[in-house]
């Protein structure tokens, strides 16, 4: 049936599979980080400006600190919790003020969308855009697309957190707010990492399962908001108390005030990695859509 020409094909000598695997993974990670540099800077500066404005307003707030505490105390507890002002948060200290205004409310809620968007774009987004077939035409195992993109997201997050940390600490130093140390700032920003990775892992799993970017963004986004409120309101609404351990925010704490709880840090990071593993398994066997 076949018309053989008798010519031989030229199969070039290839390096071992493992050597090439390591090589392609690092190339993939570097490439993905490079593509995200602009987002890293934009996200870092946007959140950094929030931190900067908050810290700059602290000296003025400090003078009326007790009145502010009294005002907040008069709020319904559900409302206080929903806005990230937990029981015992003292708004007259810079740590308490920054926790309530940035690190326990806006920063985790907003920054979690960075890995959600990155993970949903990595697989489902690439299929929708039509870039997946060209990329996978290369000798890349599918698990590397999942792992490499997730590693790139983690590195990108560290970049965003570094910018946020600098925008928090430098204004504090300039305004001579000495209570906010480098260590406290570093712990405050680093504590965001496991939480963000968790939602990034969840989005990666949805991206691997559903091959539609809207689902890979909306599902983790909805779970993010639900988990935030379950945890925040669980302190005051009895019915939600039992559900609190199911929320990733339950393990987030307030590192700027109390330091990082390393057990929780490691636990949430491990769950994030487990989600990525599940994503790799889900993506391994399914059809690539165009």
């Amino acid at each position: 049936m076949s018309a053989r020409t008798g010519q031989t094909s030229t199969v070039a000598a290839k390096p071992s599979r493992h050597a090439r695997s390591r090589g392609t993974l690092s190339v993939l990670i570097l490439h993905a980080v490079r593509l995200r540099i602009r987002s890293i800077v934009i996200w870092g500066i946007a959140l950094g400006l929030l931190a900067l404005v908050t810290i700059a307003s602290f000296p003025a707030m400090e003078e009326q600190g007790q009145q502010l505490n009294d005002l907040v105390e008069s709020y319904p507890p559900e409302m206080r919790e929903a806005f990230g002002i937990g029981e015992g948060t003292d708004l007259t200290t810079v740590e308490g003020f920054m926790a309530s205004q940035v690190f326990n409310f806006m920063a985790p809620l907003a920054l979690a969308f960075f890995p959600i968007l990155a993970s949903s774009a990595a697989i489902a987004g690439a299929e929708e855009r039509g870039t997946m077939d060209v990329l996978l035409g290369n000798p890349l195992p599918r698990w590397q697309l999942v792992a490499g993109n997730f590693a790139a997201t983690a590195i990108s997050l560290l970049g965003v957190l570094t910018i946020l940390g600098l925008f928090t600490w430098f204004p504090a130093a300039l305004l001579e707010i000495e209570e906010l140390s480098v260590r406290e700032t570093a712990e405050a920003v680093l504590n965001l990492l496991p939480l963000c990775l968790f939602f990034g892992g969840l989005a990666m799993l949805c991206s691997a399962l559903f091959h539609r970017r809207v689902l890979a963004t909306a599902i983790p986004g909805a779970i993010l908001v639900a988990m935030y409120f379950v945890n925040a309101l669980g302190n005051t609404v009895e019915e939600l108390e039992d559900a609190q351990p199911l929320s990733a925010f339950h393990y987030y704490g307030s590192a700027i005030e109390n330091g990082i709880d390393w057990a929780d840090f490691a636990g949430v990071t491990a769950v994030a990695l487990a989600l990525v593993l599940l994503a790799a398994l889900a993506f391994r066997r399914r059809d690539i859509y165009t």
Partner: protein
Amino acid sequence: MSVAIETEGLTKRYGRKAPGIEDVNLIVAPGEVFGFLGPNGAGKTTTIRTLLGFLRPTEGKARVFGLDIRRESVEIRARVGNLPGEFALEDRMTGEGLLKFFARLRGVKDLVYAHELSERLGAELHRPMRRLSRGNKQKIGLVQAMFHRPPLLILDEPTGGLDPLVQEEFLDIVEETKAEGRTVFFSSHVLSEVERVCDRVGIIRDGQLVTVEPTHALVDKAFRHVRLTFDEPVDREPFEKLRGVEDLRVEGPRVFLTLHEAPDEMVKLAAKHRLVSLEYERPTLEEVFLTYYGANGGHS
């Protein structure tokens, strides 16, 4: 040396909505240029994407250079250069950036051949993809498929969006690739290019491989267009009675017909008159192709 591509009962079903491919049996030899013909939706892209491991086959087996498409897809893709039928390139990247990235993934040390190909095809490597026309993206798609000199090129509609001069250049490159002993498998619905460069063609219709033949054999065994001119008007009836005659038209001394049988009977009949001229014309591959896709669904 193992065959370049071998499929046995390869089947991919998507469910009720979209037809896939059914029981495709195919062998492509090393060093061969194989044309895979069929209209849009016939199953060309499904076959290619299944061979590359993008789609999981429902049934059947396939091997590329002896490597199993299910278990050894990465090893296969190390030996294949692929141009997808429908594809996009990262908007913010330039062609140069993309080629450097792919070169690193493949362990290719230099881009000398990539630059040579780009120059020949007129690919713009220094503008971001979002500023490139479809044809220019197609050129970069072709370069990324070929720059690492893979033993097998799998190209899905490679000339789509290219202007005629670039198409010619591309076909020259295919011929050079063949001369180097490498294998090319490309799908197309442009028959002239297939006829020019392919050793063999496979025709796929509704997900089934209808025929696989050497290109010249497919054309040789097909019908012929015949034009006879005599020195005086001739009677229509004897020509009507010839076996395998279609589209007969008699205009005085001129007779036009399409002949599906060997010409022996027709020549003997014509010889009874004084013949002024005889034209016996091969159909184009396009016309052959249409017999498989005729209004009545063609024949197989």
